């Protein structure tokens, strides 16, 4: 399973619990800040894995590759997770669409983003060095919605701190990882079917 670093912890936990015979190979989550590179990175690993006689599942949504990952899937006969982003993977595309329809100025968080906000968002967007850019990045957002997988008190406190930075209200939607698990199980079954003569 070639997966986004933002999903890797949940995927490892699911794969271990289910006893799936897979190797989880995460790509850097920071690729999301250069999404045009995701497909190239993923393709290299797909090619290497196929050369080694392994089947590959892409545990990625489209993730801003704008069809780039679909092209990789088509070229190499592999499958990926449905949806546009990891938000869809956790919450389902219809729920995410409803959140944006209710307010396009919705900023979404996942547990990964809450945990890594300082590194993956503040530092990567240069806000640690240039806090004056905050309005350029976030000036039009009006609320935060945390799609929570495992909302511990520590994560809840971290999410509140992020909301305080934004000075915006925070809503928590408990998604868990059931949808991700179901989609991975489907991909795994399809891939195993594909290998059978």
């Amino acid at each position, binding site marked *: 399973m070639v997966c986004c670093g933002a999903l890797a912890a949940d995927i490892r936990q699911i794969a271990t619990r289910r006893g799936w015979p897979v190797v989880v190979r995460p790509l850097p989550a920071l690729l999301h*800040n*250069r999404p045009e590179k995701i497909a190239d990175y993923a393709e290299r690993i797909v090619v290497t894995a196929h050369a080694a006689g392994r089947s590959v599942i892409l545990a990625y949504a*489209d993730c*801003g590759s*704008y069809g780039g990952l679909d092209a990789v899937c088509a070229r190499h006969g592999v499958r990926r997770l449905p949806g*546009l982003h990891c938000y869809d993977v956790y919450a389902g595309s219809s729920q995410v*669409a409803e959140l*944006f*329809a209710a307010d*396009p*100025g919705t900023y979404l968080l996942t547990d990964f983003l809450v945990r890594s906000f300082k590194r993956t968002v503040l530092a*990567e*967007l*240069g*806000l640690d*060095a*240039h806090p004056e*850019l905050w309005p*350029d*990045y976030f000036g*039009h*957002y009006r609320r935060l919605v945390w799609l929570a997988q495992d909302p511990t008190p520590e994560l809840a406190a971290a999410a509140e701190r992020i909301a305080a930075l934004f000075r915006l209200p925070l809503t928590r939607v408990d998604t868990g990882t059931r949808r991700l698990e179901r989609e991975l199980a489907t991909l795994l079954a399809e891939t195993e079917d594909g290998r059978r003569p």
Partner: protein
Amino acid sequence: MRSEELLAELYDKTLTGNGPAVLDLTRQGLDQGIGPETLLYDALIPSLEEVGARFERGDFFVPEMLIAGKAMAGALDVLRPLLAETGAATIGTIVMGTVKGDVHDIGKNLVNIMFEGAGFQVIDLGVQVSPEKFIDAIKTHKPDIVGFSAFLTTTMPMFKANINALAKSGLRDRVIVMVGGAPVTQEYADAVGADGYAADASAAVARARELLNQRKAMASA
């Protein structure tokens, strides 16, 4: 400081997004008698183009583009009235906006800066702009070009909705429609019936010029 040195310094400071230094050098250059067009075309615009090229190569990321763009915007605030005084012709007018349902405007704002630097009058309608608001702005400002920006695949269909609204209002043939944004491609632009698309800010300006020239040539034919 000699003119060449000042222009080189202005180029460098814009490249590194040093807003206060860019402002100082712009004022210093004007005090030394360097024309506003020289400051713009021989330092500021080439520098921002280099910023775009470095972004393409992966040497720069969004923050570097933003601080460079903001530094140039500060200089433009000083140069704009002077360019008008010198009779520097406006190449054209463009109405810009991020489509309804979309609040992303970083790319649009960078495009605006490049358009303004290139001599266009830019009327920015902001984010979440409805088709009705675009139409009102076109009726009011009579632009040569209208630019629709979208960052989300879910909001790109608003390009078509906007173009349909233009057609319904009888305005479609009176304005050039350009579209852009991270998920947008030439194929998508063609599919929705846009006149122009560009992958980045510099290319957008070049494409806009081409489209304007084509339209002028057709009008004089």
